[in-house]
């Protein structure tokens, strides 16, 4: 009986000992840009690929670099001067899943009028 009691006590005590946690090394995020291509045009006909800096400070479109006016919460708002007017962008890109998703709101104002507008679902990947 005593032997059984000692066995049970030892089992309980040893069972309660916490095993040392294996600390996972933090994954280094080795990417510098996020590339977003058109997945689905919900509205309009936007068809360019947008490559955004990792820190959402600027993006490249059609070979031209455009600075973000505001860059927070994985999004970028930007304005680009074009002949006769401006292009306005609002881009969100999320890459915590692969492939990531994004949305692009776009409006082209020429001669004081809406010339083109789009709302596009994007597929975004770290590159």
């Amino acid at each position, binding site marked *: 009986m005593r032997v059984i009691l000692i066995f049970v006590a030892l089992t309980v005590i040893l069972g309660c000992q916490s095993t040392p946690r294996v600390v996972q090394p933090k994954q280094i995020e080795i990417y510098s840009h996020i590339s977003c291509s058109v997945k689905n045009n919900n509205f309009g006909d936007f068809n360019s690929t947008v490559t955004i800096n990792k820190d959402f400070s600027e993006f490249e479109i059609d070979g031209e670099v455009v600075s973000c*006016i505001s860059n927070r919460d994985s999004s970028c708002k930007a*304005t680009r001067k074009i002949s006769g007017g401006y292009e306005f962008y*609002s881009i969100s890109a999320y890459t915590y899943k692969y492939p990531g998703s994004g949305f692009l709101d776009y*409006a082209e104002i020429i001669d004081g*009028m*809406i010339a083109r507008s789009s*709302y596009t679902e994007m597929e975004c990947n770290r590159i």
Partner: protein
Amino acid sequence: MKFFLYIALASFAINSYAYEFENSTCTVVKEKSKSSPRVVTAIKIDKVENIAMEKAAEFGVWNQKSNSTKFVKVEVHIINGVINKSYYRVINGQLHQSFPSGNGDYSFRRIVPKINSSDGLYEIVNIKGSSFQSSILSNIRCEKNLF
């Protein structure tokens, strides 16, 4: 004599030119995303009027770069029963407005009416300061002489 006859005929043709979208009623058939609330229930487009810019300045800001003096009264019916009546400027067959809307915002509106087709457009783009603020983008379908 013939010359004057041609001038008279040309003048008549210009004055009697009817826009296809006149007296049409439009419905929103699709918003820019599934989560967009459907706010507009109907858009009614009246007859086009020729209004001098001095007179037009009494009911709007017309900053569009255009010589058009054609305007059309539009009723936009909203879901809570409110009806917004305002003039749009007709430029190249499209209807345009642009105006400051408070808090540093600037709004642009465009209606591209298409009769018996769901490819028509009703768009609002709001710019805050110098950057994109928001947009309401919808496809519309218009029917002529409905009521």
